[in-house]
């Protein structure tokens, strides 16, 4: 029960942080940080797959409401939610039936970095190319997506240091 409340709280806080603070920050003119994706990245590994999908889709839909981009964020987050389990399988060798909260502590630094990078890059690439809806400015869009992914990744790693400190 406590876990559900904690995840719900994280859901709300990340959305508010994203739409009220980060969406207004324009770093170097091109870079958008999409930290809200951290919600999917921190779901426990044993969460039912259908629930991850629905939650991801909902998260994206709410982001779409705030930024007037119908279906854009929902498409990207649903994709990330779908790829969540396969990516964990790829990088993290953990025993079945044990539910882990993805973090540096549980996945190891390398494992967590790879897991986070892959999902963040997939999310940002989907988002930026769908938003452009064209390959005309391919290199500009690509560089925007990758630079933003980098910044989001740094922020995600930043939150990890909080969790390390907490566990000690």
């Amino acid at each position, binding site marked *: 029960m406590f876990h559900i409340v904690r995840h719900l709280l994280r859901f709300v806080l990340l959305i508010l942080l994203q739409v009220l603070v980060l969406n207004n920050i324009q770093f170097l*003119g091109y870079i958008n940080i999409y930290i809200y994706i951290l919600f999917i990245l921190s779901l426990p590994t044993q969460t039912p797959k259908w629930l991850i999908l629905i939650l991801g889709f909902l998260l994206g839909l709410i982001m*779409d*409401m705030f*930024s007037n981009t*119908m279906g854009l964020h929902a*498409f990207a987050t649903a994709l990330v939610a*779908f790829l969540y389990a396969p990516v964990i399988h790829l990088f993290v060798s953990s025993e079945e039936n044990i539910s882990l909260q993805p973090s540096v502590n549980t996945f190891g630094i390398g494992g967590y970095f790879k897991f986070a990078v892959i999902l963040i890059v997939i999310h940002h690439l989907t988002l930026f190319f769908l938003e452009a809806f064209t390959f005309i400015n391919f290199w500009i869009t690509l560089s925007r997506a990758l630079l933003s992914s980098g910044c989001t990744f740094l922020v995600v790693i930043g939150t990890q240091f909080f969790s390390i400190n907490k566990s000690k």
Partner: protein
Amino acid sequence: MYETVVMRYLINFLIKYSIVLLFLLLEVVSFRMLIKNTEYQRNVFLSSSNSVVAFFYQAASSITDFFKLRSSNESLSEENTELKNQIMSLKKELEAAHSELSDSLNHSQYVEQEYRFIDAKVINNSTNKIQNYITINKGERDGVRPDMGVINEDGVVGVVSTVSERFSVIIPVLNPKLQIVSKFERSNYTGPIAWSGEDYRYVNLLDIARHVDFNQGDSLVTSGFTTAFPEGIPVGTVEDFQIKDGDPYYNIKVKLAVNFRTLSHVKVIDYLFYFEQKELEERTQQ
């Protein structure tokens, strides 16, 4: 017997691939929303004019507004002085006209008001996306309708897209979905302006043919061809232009009159003869 086997296979298949099917369903739904964008754009629930979303934006903007007070105060007082000056000069003109008229004709001229301005506050604004949107705190209740033009004291901001009871969403010039027809103030040649999605300060002016004569720094204003904007509202100035050999059209970079990063107050333009003009145009087309 055979049918039950088929059914069992089918059910097994559905169970086995239920996650993939759910995933595909969600992607199809969101992709459909993305493509049929214009249909959903009128949907208030799914946009930031939705009252829950707008509530958060309003709460947040009441904090950030505090920091913008100084600069918006300055621009308001500047506009105020300018308007006062205009009133003064208009008064003089009116007096002069009156004295002339009363000599020759006993006829008072009545000028009908064509436009009304609805003052609104920007409660959400982005400049760093490819498709940017602005949310304002005035809606249907205050007389805002879709397709109305929006300006501020410097020039053209955008066009109203979705309207709810108390809020509206504006498509600004910084969105490829909106192309406002503008013209050179000097020569009256018209062309649409379009944003390339890179820099919030610049847009491109399209469809200006090779023979048109213009210079750097020439100002662009609205054409007045649509009901959204009256003629002569500033759009921007020519920053740079070039033309390739064999190209029929110029490549013109325009510096926008409005600074979208510091937008705080806007005016929605209510064209009072909107319905009359629309009805007439529709009748002609039938």
